[in-house]
């Protein structure tokens, strides 16, 4: 910008004006009406029922919470759930076990596509029923192809399995090189020592970048306040696991962290009628997953060319 010609010519100067009473009245009318419109345009905020308390608003990041603070947070969560659902839960902060790396193996010869795993997961992990959130999506694939464009998830025949198809349930693959962890702008999701990629539901800002980044469509967002029927609430909860989430945050499969870190199998495995699902500590050579990885010849790690290195292995029997 060039230097101005200065000083500016006096004839051009703007004199300071004065206000007449009528224009003052006019101006105030506009301003008052405008402010009234502004205030009443915010009326829908009265319907908000999820305003965070000061405590919740200022809650620290999971990894920065001291044990005392964590105990207070857990108690607060228990109080909130008890108030909302009338059931007092037991919320724990379970830590990863030493010498454990979880791996999931799924036998595609055995899966019949019955979707019981989907619903067992919903029940165990307190997922919203409406809008519907389901961590597991079962894909029906035609024989002979792994082309994901041919997958169909809305099949509803009288009987499964249907001839000419095989079934592939997909959930969070707990990748060794997770794209969702890389892109989260606030570190709300990270991978723990036992391989589970977790989400701190009280830290997530709901930008949904992780949902865009996931190559397996494994992450879910709470577009509305989740609705869990009171009588189906699972009160055995974990902070990073199945405690009820809020409006506006992400969630996903966490290998039933409240069960697996207590040494138990995840709910999807327990309910599978065909025994297609196998889970355990791959670092333990006696576990069934270690046996499978040693002995089965063909594995599919979905989209392995993307370099995500999933901990989910699809295999076939011999």
């Amino acid at each position, binding site marked *: 910008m060039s230097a101005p010609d200065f000083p500016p010519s006096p004839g051009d100067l703007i004199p300071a004006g004065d206000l007449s009473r009528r224009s003052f009245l006019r101006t105030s009318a506009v301003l008052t*009406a405008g402010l009234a419109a502004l205030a009443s345009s915010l009326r829908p905020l009265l*319907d908000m029922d999820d305003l965070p308390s000061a405590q919740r608003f200022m809650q620290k990041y999971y990894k920065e919470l001291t044990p005392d603070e964590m105990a207070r947070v857990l108690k607060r969560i228990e109080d909130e759930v008890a108030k909302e659902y009338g059931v007092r839960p037991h919320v724990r902060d379970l830590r990863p076990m030493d010498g454990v790396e979880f791996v999931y193996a799924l036998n595609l010869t055995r899966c019949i596509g019955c979707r019981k795993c*989907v619903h067992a997961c919903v029940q165990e992990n307190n997922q919203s029923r409406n809008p519907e959130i389901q961590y597991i999506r079962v894909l029906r694939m035609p024989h002979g192809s792994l082309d994901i464009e041919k997958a169909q998830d*809305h099949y509803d*025949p009288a009987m499964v399995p249907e001839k000419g198809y095989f079934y592939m349930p997909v959930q969070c693959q707990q990748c060794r090189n997770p794209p969702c962890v890389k892109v989260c702008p606030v570190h709300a999701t990270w991978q723990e020592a036992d391989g589970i990629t977790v989400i701190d539901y009280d830290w997530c800002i709901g930008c949904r970048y992780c949902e865009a980044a996931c190559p397996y469509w494994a992450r879910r967002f709470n577009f509305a306040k989740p609705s869990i029927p009171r009588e189906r609430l699972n009160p055995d909860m974990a902070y990073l696991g199945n405690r009820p989430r809020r409006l506006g945050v992400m969630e996903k499969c966490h290998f039933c962290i409240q069960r697996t870190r207590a040494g138990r199998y995840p709910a999807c*495995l327990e309910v599978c009628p065909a025994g297609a699902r196998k889970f355990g500590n791959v670092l333990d050579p006696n576990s*069934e997953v270690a046996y499978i990885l040693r002995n089965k010849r063909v594995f599919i790690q979905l989209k392995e060319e993307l370099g995500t290195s999933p901990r989910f292995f699809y295999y076939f029997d011999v």
Partner: protein
Amino acid sequence: MDDRPAKGRNGSGATTAAVLWALAAAFAVLAAAFGLGPAGQPRPRDPIPLVDPSFLSTATNRRSYADLVRAKEDLSDFDCYACHEKGRPPVLRFDERENLIVPREHADIVMGHGEHGRNNNCFNCHNENNLELLQTRDGRALRFQDSPQLCGSCHGPTYEDWEAGAHGRISGCWDRPLGPITRQQCVNCHDPHAPSFRGRKPAPGPHPLRRPLDPPGRPNAS
């Protein structure tokens, strides 16, 4: 304050006044509309029925004879020697195409073990000398609760996988020291007379959040 319009367009005092009063009126109307108008609740969503609890059951396909024994249930239906004679092996009858004719007393058994009528001899597994036991392929007697060995004598690779935990259902703790596990046997999922794993009705499919934009030419469901 500069009241003078920049381009010297005068005579607009009256127009300005009119515009300002119109604005005030418009804002007032807006204030009323926002404040007193409809509540602005989102459109109610289509109801999604809760899943039938039977889909959440972890029960196995079948209860085996061994389970019934363990549960000390009424086994009168399984008392072989109520009808059969001890020491007299039952006689098997086959039709002209060498299919086994299942006696009407055992009409609830449907044979289907192996294709082309293979393995349709009852005494391939049952012990004709003691109907309350099974027999291995080399003729040794075997208790019902040890039946997996018998299955494994033909289905070797599957049996190996089953022993390692890679086939069949295990429930309980992956971390064995922490708690008990329940390992299901072959007959908990497979009917030994017609072992092919039965199909079933699938649980309901997903309900997407958004409806399709236009009536689909090709519906989503199969």
